């Protein structure tokens, strides 16, 4: 395995609000290497976007409390984007790390042509006239598969369809050959047929640029299609982290197991009843003591001494390269996996 | 727009102290007759006049009818056949020949008047002023739909028949209807112009001091537009006149001193600045920041006191008895103040003291008067009996006395009584919409309330105040008005105010049972040639008008003038009731 390009260590982001401190992401650690796709999966409010924005240094430093490290291993040396001065981090954005967002309509400036917006990004790290920038923008648009790029470069975002807009976003993010691309729910707003186009494009681009990719999504289907490794997040914490196949075939956390069992699958026509995870995710302001998933976990009674309620489980490597944050033993979990109906 | 100032533009007459001049209480004797008399006038410089008005009401000679404007334009732009002598004091009220070589030659019991033009008088384009110009000028007031606002003496007095509706058969030089009638009434032989009148008119030459009798070159007449750019035969001509901005007069190079025995032009330029707000004007006067300025409107009462108390301004101010009386005309027609007792009640309730204080006090505003004829009119004035001489009269109002009359009115005229005492109805007074009149309404209301009466106010835009009152259907119960004699004969007071149903008579007394007798007596007085007997008749008629309370609580007014430290030659021109503009100069 290649050495990681990004190393996130104990990253914690909280927001003070009127009602209390929102612990949006809590003690997050992961790595991602060039050429690798790390998927971060979780429901809304699980802290996946907050984490990525912290890595990018995009939180307002006044309103967010951030601790931990997010180290980029650059050729010029290591930079911790959490502690580095704002200006240093800014100069990494776009060049060393880039990001695309969920809604390409609102993420593109409505008043500028796509060409302007791409060439602006290019102009930040390249010497050249505006004309050169537009030329480069056309190249990028062609690369991301926009037909008649030379003509459409002068159009405004609203003149593009959703899928085309996301292509523009990708093209803009990649214009400076970034080493890391963070894709935050890049296909959620798109139709399935367009989603598969975009996922294909992302795969192609990753190959082309040999990037490290962090894919943030709630869709386990999408993850299965593109990820190499997966982090599952719940209530601000990573609850499970493993290679892609391990997550799907040997899930090691009741939440992951529950998720996989609760989603209907187009490839299974058995019509069996879905196994829903009961309840709601907890509020990030008043997290319960112990395991955050405890209230919804049907296995917690198996853990002695009410441990789930008192102690936050550690993220242990239960199998090789497979981390899980649960007090249950591997044996108990494995039983839950194989006979979900009985155990849950 | 301070009320008194504003209002002054709307009183339409000015007073000739008296031709007889003997009995005159000389104007300008009140507070130091200022004016650095010792200094010698100098030529040159620019003289500024400042005013709140946007424009002169009228500039067209046939339409000018306010004392100040007449004095202004007569001094600078127009020459009349005869003029008042431009000097201080009683002598200023004497007539001198101006455009004519004499002050007029009457004949046929003053039914025919002849004037011979002075040679060498030229228009600003160099052409000579001819008799035809005079005749044309005189013809213009007959075009009543174009030449509005001017005095009607010529229209009334010239021997031209009247139509059934009261208008003249001659419709003026534009339509030329009845031109032959006019040509008979006014004739030119060489440089002599002859006026044929429809009655004896001993003072006819005084009527000709109005620019309505001034010549106008027919070729230059543009009807209504002539009001913007009249042609000058005086020492100045209009270089620019922009409404809301300024009027700029420059020397008329075609004018020659030789041909003019009346005028002595000193400044090179005369500029009238329009539209200067009262705060700004007062500031200029108080600070003397523009020393070559004359204030055409007075100061606000508060600033007036400051200015007149400042010893440094000793030589920059005048406080004089002016020619005006200010009064409330009672509308005596049915349904209005048709009840003598109610009128008396209002009279006694009136808080004259507070109203005088409000407007500057007796020092600056005036004193309670007892007659429609002002005391400065001399011969025609005599103190009347009753009214302010009534033992019950109090200058600050006597509500108790007023209530007595109201009690009487309860039986004598119950409907009127009921209305004026009803808090939800009351009677209504017309007032021009000015700041000071709005303020005065407070005092009037309080005084009426004290006597148990209710008063409402109808504020009318000041520019259309008299025009609105002139519509008898629009007139309310009581209307504020002001008047000054046109010359020193109550014939210019009593008939217009009381005995003609013209637009100057706001009492609507034609409905009064006593009107017929009054009118007969007034007409008789008008025709009297015995001046003493006439004066006595006027005095009796004044007494009658006061007894009937057709007008209430008149004030014999005062006027103040202020000017900058660089202005010299200021005096109060009695007959015009304003500056002697022609003698003003800018100190070197």
């Amino acid at each position, binding site marked *: 395995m290649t050495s990681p390009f990004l190393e996130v260590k104990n990253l914690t982001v909280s927001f003070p609000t009127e009602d209390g401190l929102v612990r949006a992401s809590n003690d997050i650690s992961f790595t991602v290497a060039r050429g690798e796709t790390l998927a971060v999966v979780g429901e809304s409010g699980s802290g996946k976007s907050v984490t990525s924005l912290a890595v990018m240094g*995009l939180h307002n430093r006044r309103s967010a409390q951030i601790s931990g490290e997010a180290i980029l291993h650059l050729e010029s040396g290591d930079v911790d984007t959490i502690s580095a001065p704002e200006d240093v981090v*800014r100069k990494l*954005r*776009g*060049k060393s790390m880039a990001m695309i967002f969920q*809604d390409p309509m*609102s*993420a*593109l*400036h*409505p*008043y*500028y042509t796509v060409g302007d917006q791409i060439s*602006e990004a290019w102009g930040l*790290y390249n010497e050249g006239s505006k004309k050169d920038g537009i030329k480069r923008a056309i190249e990028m648009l062609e690369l991301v598969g926009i037909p008649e790029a030379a003509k459409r470069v002068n159009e405004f975002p609203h003149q593009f369809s959703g899928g085309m807009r996301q292509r523009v976003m990708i093209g803009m993010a990649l214009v400076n050959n970034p080493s890391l691309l963070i894709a935050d729910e890049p296909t959620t707003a798109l139709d399935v047929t367009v989603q598969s186009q975009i996922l294909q494009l992302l795969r192609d681009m990753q190959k082309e640029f040999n990037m490290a990719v962090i894919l943030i999504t709630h869709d386990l289907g999408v993850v299965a299609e593109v990820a190499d490794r997966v982090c599952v997040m719940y209530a601000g914490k990573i609850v499970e982290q493993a290679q892609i196949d391990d997550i799907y075939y040997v899930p090691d956390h009741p939440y992951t197991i529950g998720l996989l069992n609760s989603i209907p699958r187009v490839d299974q026509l058995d019509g069996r009843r879905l196994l829903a995870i009961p309840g709601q995710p907890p509020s990030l302001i008043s997290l319960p003591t112990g395991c955050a998933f405890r209230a919804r976990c049907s296995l917690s009674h198996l853990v002695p001494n009410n441990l789930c309620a008192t102690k936050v489980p550690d993220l242990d490597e239960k199998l090789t390269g497979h981390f899980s944050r649960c007090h249950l033993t591997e044996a108990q979990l494995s039983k839950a996996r194989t006979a979900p109906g009985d155990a849950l | 727009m301070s009320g008194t100032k504003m209002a002054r533009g709307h009183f*339409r007459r000015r007073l000739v102290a008296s031709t007889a001049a003997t009995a005159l209480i000389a104007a300008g004797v009140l507070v130091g007759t200022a004016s650095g008399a010792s200094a010698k006038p100098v030529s040159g410089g620019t003289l*500024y006049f*400042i005013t709140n008005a*946007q*424009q002169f009401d009228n500039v067209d000679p046939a*339409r000018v009818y306010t004392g100040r404007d007449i004095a202004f334009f007569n001094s600078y732009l127009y020459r009349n056949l005869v003029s008042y002598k431009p000097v201080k004091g009683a002598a200023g009220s004497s007539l001198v020949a101006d455009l004519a070589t004499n002050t007029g030659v009457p004949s046929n019991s003053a039914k025919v008047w002849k004037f011979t033009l002075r040679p060498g008088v030229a228009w600003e384009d160099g052409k000579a002023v001819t008799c035809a110009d005079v005749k044309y000028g005189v013809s213009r007031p007959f075009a*009543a*739909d*174009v030449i*509005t*606002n*001017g005095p*009607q003496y010529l229209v009334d007095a010239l021997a031209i028949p009247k139509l059934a*509706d*009261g*208008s003249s058969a001659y419709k003026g*030089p*534009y339509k*030329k209807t009845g031109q032959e009638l006019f040509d008979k009434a006014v004739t030119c032989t060489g440089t002599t112009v002859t006026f044929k009148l429809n009655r004896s008119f001993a003072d006819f030459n005084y009527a000709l001091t109005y620019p309505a009798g001034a010549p106008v070159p027919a070729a230059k*007449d543009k*009807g*209504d*537009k002539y*009001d*913007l750019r009249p042609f000058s035969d005086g020492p100045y001509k209009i270089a620019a006149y922009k*409404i*809301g*901005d*300024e009027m700029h007069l420059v020397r008329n190079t075609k004018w020659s001193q030789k041909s003019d025995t009346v005028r002595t032009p000193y400044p090179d330029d005369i500029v009238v*600045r329009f*539209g*200067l707000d009262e*705060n700004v*004007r007062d500031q200029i006067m108080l600070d003397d*920041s*523009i020393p070559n*300025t004359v204030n055409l409107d007075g100061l606000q009462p508060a600033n007036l006191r400051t200015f007149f108390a400042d010893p440094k301004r000793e030589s920059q101010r005048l406080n004089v008895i002016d020619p005006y009386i200010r009064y409330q005309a009672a509308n005596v027609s049915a349904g209005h103040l048709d009840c003598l007792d109610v009128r008396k009640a209002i009279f006694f309730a009136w808080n004259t003291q507070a109203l005088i204080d409000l407007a500057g006090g007796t020092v600056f505003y005036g004193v309670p008067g007892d007659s429609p004829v002002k005391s400065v009119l001399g011969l025609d004035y005599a103190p009347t009996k009753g009214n302010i001489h009534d033992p019950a009269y109090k200058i600050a109002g006597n509500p108790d006395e007023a209530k007595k009359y109201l009690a009487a009115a309860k039986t004598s005229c119950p409907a009127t009584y009921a209305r004026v005492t009803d808090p939800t109805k009351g009677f209504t007074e017309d007032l021009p919409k000015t700041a000071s009149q709005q303020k005065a309404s407070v005092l009037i209301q309080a005084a009426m309330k004290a006597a148990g009466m209710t008063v409402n106010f109808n504020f009318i*835009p000041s*520019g*259309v105040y008299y*025009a609105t009152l*002139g519509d008898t259907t629009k007139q309310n119960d009581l209307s504020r008005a002001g008047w000054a004699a046109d010359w020193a004969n109550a014939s210019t007071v009593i008939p217009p105010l009381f005995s003609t149903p*013209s*637009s*100057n008579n706001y009492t609507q007394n034609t409905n009064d049972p006593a009107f017929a007798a009054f009118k007969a007596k007034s007409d008789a007085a008008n025709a009297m040639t015995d001046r003493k007997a006439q004066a006595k008749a006027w005095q009796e008629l004044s007494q009658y008008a006061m007894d009937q309370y057709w007008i209430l609580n008149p004030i014999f007014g005062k006027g103040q003038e202020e000017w900058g430290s660089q202005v010299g030659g200021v005096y109060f021109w009695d007959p015009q009731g304003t500056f002697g503009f022609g003698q003003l100069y800018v100190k070197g």
Partner: protein
Amino acid sequence: MLKYLVRRLSATLLVITLVSMSVFIIFAYLPMDPARLTCGKACTPPIIEANRHRLGLDVPVQIQYGRFVKGLFVGREYGEGAAKFECPAPAFGYSFNKHECVATLIASAFPVTFSLAIGAFILWLLLGVSLGVLAAKRQGKWQDKASTVFVLVGISLPTFISGILILLLALKFNLINPIEMGRWVSPFTNPLGWAWNFIFPWITLALAFAATYTRFTRSNVIETSSEDYIRTARAKGLSEKVILRKHTLRAALAPIVTIAGLDFAGLLGGAIITENIFNLPGLGRLSIRAVLIDYDLPVILTTTLLAATFVVVMNLIVDILYAYIDPRVRVA
């Protein structure tokens, strides 16, 4: 685009026509009798009737309107016989009080009002926008609070108070030559004199208007700052300055065009109070004096109509401008 323009323009013309008609009808049925009000001091019934004829009020209102419209295009004659004269096109009427064609009065008043409006407009935009941006960027800090105070004072202080205070102060400290006050100075011959002439009125109006813009800018900048595309700009690596200047302000200020346009149009109709206080012979003063002093109907009618026209036309301009600024509303 051209089709759109033509359509909008014709719609605008229609509105102006309707406005002019209604104004005409409203004034025609007033209880005031202009014939009496302008007939002078010796008004007898025959003179009033002659005067009515002179004013052109002796015909039905639709004919009056027809004459008015015709006058706009071919000019209009007044008076009869030798006293006849003409107001050339566009003839809005003739003021018998001022002895001028209304168009002439407007022509001399409009530059004043326009100068007042444009200067105040620039001043308040500069002041309002920069304060608003400052407040947004320093949200919660003293700059923000100070600007809030400014906004509230600005909104709460009627111009007739602030204007008078400014005037009195300026007079007290001899900052203006009172006799020259408000006199029209052409900006082409004497730009400094022109500016000095207008500086206090500009300040008065700017004080009143800037407050709204400060508030508006502040909230828009704050709102725009949380837009996704601003985050995108940041993710691109743009500096905060560029983001503010190029991305935030462009979007935040676009809606200001609409408000600013209409405010400006409103002022073009005449800033009545400010013009009055500072002795500016503009449209506002022309109209208020026409109403309050001599009820000069042709002037009132024209200034009212003009004010409406400014609003309607400015609406059109604003829409077109907005389409230019915001590509999303551009019409094909």
